[in-house]
């Protein structure tokens, strides 16, 4: 259109023989063309705006279907919701593959390359307030001929009622410690979790029960009950770890109380304490009055590129004489404790060197029943001390490559190791 107008003007400009009538006619044509051009431009703008609005509406509808309030094939808004809602099914997961080289010549442990974890989360949102979530874990390559594991680590339904009070019930993660709730490989620095959170806090720790949780300002809480430990299973250094039932036909004669408080003291500083305590005899002969308790306190601090963490954990057994008398083939531990401190520095988003020191002893106080003399012998084991020096590389927020060297003092025996790992979440 503009080109036509321009050529007309040019024709006028170069013409030297036009009459007054002809000039007037050309002027009228120009005015008419300009008017049509404006109408077309206005229509064009209106079409563009309508298109932008439609695209924007579709984007919003796709992102937040609940905002739509549209009907589908004549149904009411509520009945139409399912047609517009996003898939309620959610699939996620994480995994890690490790290589461990034992550097001390005297080490009895062979080097290993392990498909340590392949985990899948499956969740289903019945409504925004009733949500099922589960974690299915294959450890050490899955289960073949008794090796490896295939476990349901949690399978619970959350009823979201209000910020101050919600309910989670089913097979739940026991809310004790730091790693037990956050054990994905991108969540912690070293190739392996701190051993304090393995032998004192027996992560990964999951049990059947019911939890309530919520927030009051800067304070988050969790309280509930889960099936208690089974004292008949735990002895020696694994007095707590092996006493976990894991939700597989869990004996439920005794229940345990679980509680947790998370206090967000300031930006970047979180303080937490948590406890599990309860009888663990499960009405089994000879285990009357036996109880297991694990408690901990930890602090996490982040300031700019600096990350610091510290955790102290203590595990005790009540009715230890009965427990020792039950396990006459082995000593039992009546007290264990451990701590670790960690510092990491995020040089960039990708690179983070770190150092972690820990000291723990799962057999700080042991008890052995001598059935011949019918007497109890007290004892204790040496501490395990581990210093981990390492580097994490995170090429993508969901992908991590780790390398660390552990100066490993295993109850007085050097057992250093070099560890490499790849981990992912999705």
């Amino acid at each position: 259109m503009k080109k036509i107008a321009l050529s007309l003007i040019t024709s006028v400009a170069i013409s030297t023989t036009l009459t007054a009538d002809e000039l007037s006619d050309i002027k009228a044509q120009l005015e008419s063309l300009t008017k049509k051009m404006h109408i077309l431009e206005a229509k064009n703008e209106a079409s563009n705006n309508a298109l932008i609005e439609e695209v924007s509406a579709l984007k919003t509808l796709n992102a937040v279907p609940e905002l739509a309030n549209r009907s589908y094939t004549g149904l009411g808004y509520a009945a139409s919701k399912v047609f517009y809602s996003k898939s309620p099914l959610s699939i996620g997961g994480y995994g890690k593959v490790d290589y461990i080289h034992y550097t001390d010549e005297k080490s009895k442990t062979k080097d290993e390359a392990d498909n340590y974890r392949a985990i899948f989360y499956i969740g289903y949102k019945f409504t925004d307030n009733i949500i099922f979530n589960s974690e299915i874990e294959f450890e050490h390559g899955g289960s073949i001929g008794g090796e490896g594991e295939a476990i349901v680590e949690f399978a619970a339904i959350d009823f979201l009622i209000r910020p101050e009070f919600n309910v989670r019930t089913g097979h739940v993660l026991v809310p004790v410690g730091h790693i037990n709730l956050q054990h994905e490989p991108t969540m912690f620095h070293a190739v392996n979790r701190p051993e304090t959170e393995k032998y004192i806090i027996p992560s990964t720790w999951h049990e059947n029960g019911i939890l309530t949780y919520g927030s009051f300002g800067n304070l988050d809480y969790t309280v509930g009950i889960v099936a208690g430990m089974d004292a008949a299973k735990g002895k020696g250094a694994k007095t707590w770890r092996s006493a976990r039932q894991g939700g597989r036909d869990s004996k439920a004669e005794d229940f345990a109380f679980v509680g947790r408080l998370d206090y967000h003291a300031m930006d970047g500083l979180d303080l937490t304490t948590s406890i599990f305590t309860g009888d663990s005899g499960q009405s089994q002969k000879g285990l009357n009055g036996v109880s297991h308790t694990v408690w901990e306190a930890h602090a996490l601090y982040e300031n700019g590129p600096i990350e610091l963490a510290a955790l102290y954990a203590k595990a005790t057994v009540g009715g230890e004489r009965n427990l020792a008398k039950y396990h006459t083939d082995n000593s039992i531990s009546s007290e264990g404790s451990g701590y670790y401190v960690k510092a990491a520095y995020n040089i960039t988003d990708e690179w983070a060197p770190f150092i972690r020191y820990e000291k723990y002893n799962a057999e700080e106080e042991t008890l052995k029943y001598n059935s011949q003399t019918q007497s109890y012998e007290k004892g204790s084991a040496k501490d395990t001390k581990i210093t981990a020096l390492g580097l994490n590389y995170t090429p993508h927020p969901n992908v991590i490559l780790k390398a660390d060297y552990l100066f490993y003092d295993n109850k007085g025996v050097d057992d250093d190791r070099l560890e490499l790992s790849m981990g992912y979440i999705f």
Partner: protein
Amino acid sequence: MFRIIFLTLFTTGLLSSKVLIKPDEAMKLHFQEATQISKKSILLVKDEIKSAQKIAKRKISDRVFRVFVAKKGDQIVGYGLLHTANVRTKDETALYIIDLKGQMKAIEIIAFYEPPEYLPQKRWLNQFIDATVENELKLKKDIHTISGATLSARAVTDSAKIALSVLAIARKNGKL
């Protein structure tokens, strides 16, 4: 105990599907002087997206944005830009509420489809108050991450910077 819990659940009537807050309600909450909240959609052309990406230092995959405008009479008092980002496998949508000085006034999570424990809390979102396009908004440097929910923190932090940049370009070019 179970009976009490289920009675509580079903008598409270709170187990219905809903968004956390509607965008226009969020705008009213933060611009209480406003007499009118309207919505507008804007399209940024290729060069504008390039400029916004340069300021944001993040890739911007959208070209069309939904903006809520708060007015007192005929005077605009502030904006809210709706932005959706993927957290892990699911999306979150938030309204980034920005005043006339280009400062972040608040962030309101509109919808969150990941498990609720990953939902950013108000106290964490408050870190963004007064942030402008001049702020780098780098996670772990300028913004503390959320313990156990790094992916949520990353999604919201990136979206906040994108919202500030897009709004700055749109206003500069007279699109708002």
